[in-house]
C-alpha cells in the first residue's frame, strides 16, 4: 500500500467520479426540474458510445466522431422525448420507471440487433494514447487524465450556465418550485426540452469519452445508471453541487475500497477469507455509504429547498 | 400582555423559530383557557401557520416551551400530542382523498378506541366506529354526504369534514387554521354557526382572516405581526388598541 499507489488510485477514483458526474448531472437536472425519473438515461450513455464507434469507423477521426455522435445522440434523445417521455411528465414515478425501463429493454436489444452482441471498441486518439510517468516505474494513461480534465471543464461550464444564465436561473427555480416557474409564463415545455436535450448530450459525452477504455457492449448503461442514481440521491435530487460532490465521493470510495479492502481486512483476518470477503465488502461500500447518508440526511447531502 | 391564566389548556412560553437568519416566531407567549375560543389574527406572513405547526408538532421550535394541560409537549411527535387531546385543521385542506367522508372521520374515532394493530375484521363494518363518526358528521351537517369520496367533496364540504375529523378526536384543544379560507359567503356563514355550537365544549385556537367570523366567535384575540404578539385581549379591547389600528386592523375595518 505504497504512497504512489494511493495517488494513482486517487486519480483513478477521480476519473470514475468525473464520469459518474457527467451522467448524474443530466439525470439530476431532468429529475429535479421535470420530476421525471428517466431510467433510460443510461441507454443514452450507451448510445453515445455506439454512435462514436460507428462514426469513427466511417470517418477515422475521433473529434468528428465525437461531434457527430453527440449530435446524433441529441436527435435520438429528442425523438424519444417527443414520442414517449413528454407523455410521462405528469404521471407518477412508478409509471415513469416502468415505461423508461421498457425503453431500456428495447434499446439494449436494438443495439444488439444493429451492431451485434460482440463488444466493440474505439481507439484512443493518437495524440492522447501515451502514458505519463508519475514517479519512476508508475505510469498513468494520458486518456484518463483527459477524462478528468474534460469532466471538470464540463462541471465548471455547468456551474456557469446554471448560475449565470437565464435558462440556468429557470432551471434552479424549476428544481425547487416547478409550479411557480410555469406560472411565470415561461414556456415550460421548451425549458424541459432544453434540459432534457442537454442531459442527453452529457450522458452521450460520457459514453464517448469512456469508450476507448471500456468495451462498448449492449447493456453497458445499466450498471452505470444505478450508480448515477446512487450519486444523485446521495447528493440530493436536483442539486448540481450535490451531484458533483457525491459523484467524486462515490468514485473515490468505490475505487479505493476495491483496491485496499483486502489489504485492510488482512490486518484483521487470514489472507484467504480476506480475499473472499474483501471484494464483497468493496462492492457493498457505496451502498452502505448511501444508506448511511440517507439515514442521517433523508433528503441527501444538499436537499433542494421546498421539495 | 394579558394576565397569566390559572391552569390553561394551552400555554406557550417564549416560543421562537427561525429558518436560517429569518425569524418567523419571535418570543411568542400565549394562554388558552378551558372552553375559550382564542383567535390569532395578523397579516399574511405574520407567522400564524408556523405557530400552529409548532403547537401541533409538525414543525420543531428553535426555542421555548409548549404545555398542554400542564404537560410539556415541546418535544413530542404529532401523534403523541394527538393522543393527549390536541386536534387541528389545516389551512390547505388536508383530508384523505381516497377515503369516504365517513371513513375519514372513522379513522379519527379508531385512533381513540382500541388498538389499531388488528389485522383481520373489516374496519369499515365496525358499527361503534361508524356511529361515532356519523355523529361527528351530523354535527357539521355532512351526514348526507357520508359515503362520498373525500376527493369528490366541494371545498366547503372538505373544510367541514376537517372539522368533523377534529371533533371525532374529542379534543381538549382544537387548532383551526383558517377554516373559512376559500369558502363562499354562504358556506362561511354555515361554518360560523357550527363553530358557535361547538364553542365552550373544548378550547379552540382560531387563526382566521375573515374578521366577521373572528369577532363573532372569539372570546379573546391576539394580534401577531412579524412573529411577535402585538396585542392580546377581549375583542373590544383589541379593536380599540391604537397600535393594532395602525399596524393592521385599521384599514380593514373601515
Amino acid at each position, binding site marked *: 500500500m505504497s504512497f504512489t499507489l494511493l495517488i494513482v488510485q486517487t486519480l483513478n477514483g477521480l476519473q470514475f467520479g468525473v464520469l459518474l458526474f457527467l451522467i448524474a448531472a443530466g439525470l439530476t437536472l431532468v429529475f429535479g426540474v421535470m420530476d421525471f425519473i428517466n431510467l433510460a438515461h443510461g441507454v443514452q450513455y450507451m448510445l453515445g458510445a455506439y454512435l462514436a464507434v460507428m462514426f469513427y469507423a466511417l470517418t477515422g477521426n475521433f473529434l468528428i466522431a465525437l461531434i457527430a455522435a453527440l449530435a446524433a445522440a441529441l436527435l435520438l434523445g429528442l425523438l424519444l422525448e417527443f414520442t414517449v417521455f413528454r407523455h410521462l411528465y405528469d404521471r407518477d414515478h412508478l409509471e415513469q420507471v416502468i415505461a423508461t425501463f421498457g425503453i431500456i429493454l428495447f434499446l439494449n436489444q436494438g443495439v444488439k440487433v444493429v451492431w451485434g452482441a460482440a463488444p466493440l471498441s474505439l481507439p484512443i486518439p493518437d495524440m492522447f494514447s501515451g502514458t505519463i510517468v508519475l514517479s519512476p516505474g508508475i505510469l498513468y494513461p494520458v486518456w484518463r487524465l483527459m477524462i478528468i480534465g474534460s469532466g471538470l471543464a464540463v462541471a465548471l461550464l455547468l456551474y456557469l450556465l446554471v448560475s449565470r444564465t437565464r435558462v440556468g436561473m429557470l432551471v434552479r427555480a424549476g428544481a425547487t418550485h416547478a409550479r411557480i416557474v410555469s406560472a411565470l409564463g415561461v414556456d415550460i415545455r421548451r425549458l424541459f426540452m432544453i434540459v432534457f436535450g442537454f442531459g442527453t448530450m452529457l450522458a452521450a459525452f460520457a459514453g464517448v469519452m469512456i469508450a476507448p477504455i471500456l468495451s462498448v457492449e449492449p447493456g453497458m448503461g445499466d450498471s452505470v445508471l444505478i450508480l448515477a442514481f446512487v450519486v444523485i440521491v446521495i447528493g440530493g435530487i436536483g442539486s448540481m453541487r450535490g451531484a458533483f460532490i457525491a459523484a467524486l465521493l462515490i468514485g473515490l470510495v468505490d475505487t479505493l475500497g476495491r483496491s485496499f479492502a483486502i489489504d485492510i481486512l488482512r490486518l484483521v483476518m487470514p489472507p484467504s477469507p480476506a480475499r473472499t470477503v474483501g471484494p464483497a465488502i468493496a462492492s457493498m461500500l457505496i*451502498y452502505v455509504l448511501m444508506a448511511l447518508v440517507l439515514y442521517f440526511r433523508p433528503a441527501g447531502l444538499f436537499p433542494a429547498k421546498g421539495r | 400582555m394579558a394576565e397569566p391564566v390559572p391552569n390553561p389548556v394551552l400555554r406557550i412560553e417564549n416560543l421562537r423559530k427561525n429558518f436560517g437568519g429569518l425569524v418567523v416566531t419571535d418570543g411568542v407567549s400565549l394562554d388558552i383557557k378551558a372552553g375559550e375560543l382564542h383567535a390569532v389574527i395578523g397579516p399574511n406572513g405574520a407567522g400564524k401557520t408556523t405557530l400552529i405547526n409548532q403547537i401541533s408538532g409538525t414543525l420543531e421550535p428553535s426555542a421555548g416551551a409548549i404545555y398542554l394541560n400542564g404537560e410539556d409537549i415541546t418535544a413530542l411527535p404529532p401523534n403523541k400530542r394527538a393522543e393527549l387531546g390536541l386536534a387541528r385543521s389545516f389551512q390547505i385542506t388536508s383530508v384523505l382523498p381516497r377515503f369516504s367522508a365517513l371513513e375519514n372521520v372513522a379513522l379519527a374515532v379508531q385512533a381513540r378506541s382500541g388498538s389499531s394493530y388488528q389485522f383481520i375484521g373489516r*374496519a369499515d363494518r365496525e358499527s361503534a366506529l361508524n356511529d361515532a363518526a356519523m355523529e361527528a358528521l351530523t354535527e357539521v351537517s355532512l351526514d348526507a354526504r357520508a359515503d362520498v369520496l373525500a376527493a369528490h367533496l366541494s371545498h366547503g364540504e372538505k373544510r367541514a369534514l376537517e372539522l368533523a375529523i377534529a371533533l371525532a378526536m374529542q379534543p381538549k384543544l382544537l387548532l383551526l387554521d383558517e377554516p373559512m379560507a376559500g369558502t363562499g359567503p354562504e358556506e362561511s356563514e354555515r361554518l360560523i354557526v357550527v363553530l358557535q355550537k361547538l364553542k365552550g365544549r373544548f378550547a379552540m385556537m382560531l387563526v382566521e382572516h375573515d374578521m366577521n367570523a373572528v369577532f363573532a366567535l372569539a372570546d379573546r384575540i391576539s394580534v401577531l405581526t412579524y412573529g411577535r404578539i402585538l396585542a392580546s385581549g377581549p375583542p373590544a379591547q383589541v379593536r380599540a388598541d391604537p397600535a393594532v389600528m395602525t399596524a393592521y386592523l385599521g384599514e380593514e375595518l373601515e
Partner: protein
Amino acid sequence: MSLSVTALPRARNYEALPIAIFLVLALAPLAASFGAETYLLGLFTRVMIYGIAALALDFICGYGGLVSFGHAAFVGIGAYTAGIFSAHGITDMAITLPVALIVSALFAWLTGTVCLRTKSVYFIMITLAFGQMIYFVAGSLSPYGGDDGMTLKLRSTLFGFPVLQNDRALYYAVLAFLLVSYLLLRAIVSSRFGRVFRGARDNPTRMATIGYDVFRYQRVAYVIAGCLGGLAGFLLANATEFVSPSFMSWQRSGELIIMVLFGGIGTLHGAIVGAAAFLLLEDMLGGITENWKLIFGPMLVLIVLFARGGLLGLAQSVWERLRRG
C-alpha cells in the same frame, strides 16, 4: 400526479375475478396433464411463486405507497434459508419455513427502520441499496456456491415425509400458500390496521395529527411484505431445486415492480395476473424470437401510456365500452 380516485369502487368484478383466477390455477394441472405436464406445472408453479412475491409488493406499494426496489432481497433470503438448511441436511419445513420467515421479518424490521425514514425516490433508492448489499453477501457465501449458487439435494419435507417431492403436490402446496397469502392480505387491507396503513399513503401528516405513529404502522406492513417475499423465496428454492444470488439482483426487484404495475396496482389479484402475464410472455415471446425484448419493451411503454391501471384496468375499460355498446 393525479390520484386515481375513480379506480376505487369496482365491487362487482372485485369478487368474480379473483375467484376466476384461483379456479383457473386450481384446474390448470388437469389441462397440463394432456401434454408437457412437468413443464407446464413448473411454469405455473413459478407464476404462483412470483405471484406471492408480487402480492406482497403490491400490498406495500399499491396500498401503502412504499415503492420498494429491493423486494427481491426477501425472495433471496427465503431461498437461501431453504438452501443453506438443505446443504446441512435439514429439510423439514416445520423448521426451515418458520426460520425463513423469521429471518425475512428480521431483515425487514432492521432495514425498514432505516428505509422508512425517507420518502418517495429516496425510499426507492435506499431499498435498492439494502437489496444490493444482501446480493453481494449471497455472492460471497463460497461454502454455499458463491456466485454460482447451489443445487438443493432434496425438496423440503414435512415431519419427515417428502410431501413436495411430486411436482403436482408442490403445485398445489404453492397454490395453497398463494391463496392463504391473498386472503390474508385482503383481510389486512380492509382491517383496522390496513385502513391506517392506507391512510398513511394518502396523507401521512393528517394521519399523524389524528394520532397515528405512521412510521410504526408502515414498518409492520413492511415486515409483513418481507415475510411473504421470504415465503416466495422458500418456495422458489423448492421449485427450481436451486438457489442463486441472481434471485435477488436489482433486475429481479425491477421485474417484481413491473409485474405489480402490469396487472394493475393496488388490487392484489392484479399482482397475480401481472406475474402470470410477465412470466408467460417472457416464455412465449422468448420462443418466438431471441429478440423478444424488442417486443416486450415497447409493450411496457404502451401499457403505461394507454392502459392506466394495468391489464386489469385495460380489461375493465374494454368491458365497460362493450357493455355500453
